[in-house]
């Protein structure tokens, strides 16, 4: 049996599969054994409570879906008192996702979450629904740095920076997060998108715009994982469009150390366990002793362009 363990900084995960924030809650214990997961990542919590966006909050798109849930939240206290205890008996480490409106608030939120039972904090600096037109910290290297910096000052827990894919140059943002001390990157949140019903002429989401996730975005995110992996030394956690173990392997080969599964769980609540079992099978089939061997192991032929150009000189 292959060794599926991977390290995210000092945290050792028994396997590289964990849920994506907002796509997981303890209700999934009805469908899978939570202790089998590499880690647990919770829905983003904001310091203050919020009601979220108008319905409809989801709609489907080709090979994907839009959501504009909009971070309904009962606040951090509620999380610590009512949510976190549900996971105390689960062996997988608990990663608490936070979202906030200012760098300072992000810092304070991390202080509040520096509590027993929380193994790491995922900083959702990228949620496209919060501000007008989806602008977020992670759309600017400066803001990313400021937010991460504020957080690192207030906690000794590892901070995972969750980036937005809605940027021109993800590697630049990745470097800014690393510079500010991020312990890992999650690549990435959803793509800002919109769908209109031609029959009613109305947007399909109450909030007009929302975030695109699911298999449709996988090739985009795999590219970004690849770019981030080349740009930074900290681990990259791939998140986007993973449905099967083979999709997870694609992320690992591109440079991810671990992966998060979101939308796929909506189609099959046991998807994450299926993926873990599929990874074991993949490693067996391919003689992979340690899954960590796959990280960034995409096999790129460095000579191909040269050979192709040499051809060019010969051709008309």
């Amino acid at each position, binding site marked *: 049996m292959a060794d599926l363990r991977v390290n995210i900084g000092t945290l050792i995960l028994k396997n590289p599969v964990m849920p994506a924030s907002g796509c997981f809650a303890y209700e999934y214990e009805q469908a899978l054994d939570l202790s089998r997961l590499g880690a647990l990542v919770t*829905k983003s919590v904001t310091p203050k409570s919020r*009601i*979220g966006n*108008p319905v409809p909050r989801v709609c489907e798109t080709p090979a994907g*879906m839009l959501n504009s849930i909009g971070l*309904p939240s009962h606040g951090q206290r509620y999380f610590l008192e009512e949510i976190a205890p549900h996971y105390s008996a689960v062996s997988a480490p608990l990663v608490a996702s936070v979202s906030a409106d200012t760098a300072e608030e992000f810092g304070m939120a991390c202080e509040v979450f520096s509590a027993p039972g929380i193994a790491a904090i995922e900083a959702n600096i990228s949620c496209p629904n919060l501000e007008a037109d989806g602008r977020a910290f992670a759309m600017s290297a400066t803001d990313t740095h400021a937010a991460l910096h504020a957080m690192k000052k207030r906690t000794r827990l590892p901070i995972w920076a969750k980036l937005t894919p809605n940027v021109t140059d993800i590697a630049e943002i990745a470097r800014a997060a690393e510079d500010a001390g991020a312990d890992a990157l999650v690549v990435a949140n959803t793509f800002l998108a919109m769908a209109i019903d031609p029959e009613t002429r109305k947007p399909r989401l109450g909030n007009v715009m929302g975030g695109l996730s699911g298999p449709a975005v996988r090739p985009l995110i795999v590219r970004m994982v690849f770019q981030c992996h080349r740009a930074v030394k900290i681990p990259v956690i791939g998140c986007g469009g993973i449905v099967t173990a083979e999709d997870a392997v694609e992320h690992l080969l591109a440079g991810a150390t671990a992966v998060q599964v979101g939308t796929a769980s*909506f*189609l099959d*609540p046991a998807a994450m366990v299926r993926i873990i079992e599929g990874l074991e099978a993949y490693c067996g089939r391919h003689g992979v002793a340690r899954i960590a061997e796959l990280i960034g192991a995409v096999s790129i032929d460095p000579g191909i362009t040269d050979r192709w150009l040499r051809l060019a000189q010969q051709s008309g």
Partner: protein
Amino acid sequence: MKVESHSCEVLQHDWVNARYKYLRLRCPAPLARATVAGQFFQLACPHGETEQPFLRRPMSVYGIGPQDERIEFLYHVKGVGTRALERLRPGGTLEMFGPLGRGFRFSPQWQRILLVARGVGLATMAPLVPLAARAGVGITALLSARAPSDLMQEEFLRGAPAQVHAVYDSDGSSAVDRVEALLRDVLLRQRFDMVYTCGSNRLLFLMQKMQMRGEAALEQQMACAMGVCLSCVRLFNEGGEKVFRRVCCEGPVFPIATVSGEVQFG
């Protein structure tokens, strides 16, 4: 595990009328034993040349058993997903997971129940009928439909004895004021231990206005159907406060009295 994906075999799949289809499945597990009236499943509608439904479709169970591995649905062919579903043929396979949600309360000790249904609401409440019939609980049903051809009274009762009041759009008898008069009349004559409704906001709010106590099954756009994604919220009045509840797991069945008007979109 309580909730699992199952590959079910299509045993029967027939049109009931021009818009509704009946589907009977053989499941690879004794799902009927685990399912109660009012619960639903998430169905993976098959992909076709023109339709590629991505999300699962929530469907209440229309029939539970009698065999342990038999589950039935009755559904309205409406959009992308149900059009794709409709094309499944007997012998084909349907993936689904469930049972999901909280079903209707029911007690065999009761004397009589009232069912107020319109459209697909009929499918959702149908499993209550054999439950009541077997327990000797009397059934009164108010069925509302566009026209007599749409009523599906047979499909609803499946031979069980019941007192039925049918109202139609086609003859104006389904107008709210006329239904109100009808309901008042029924309530004067009979005592109900429980009242159920599904399929019409208009009927639901009428019953609320009339301060009828009982249960309503609601619908909302869903993604996960397991309480995780927070997409399926509706607003409720609970103890003087307005709160959001997830239709998929805190419902789909809620006390009639608590259902609040919704911010209508657009």
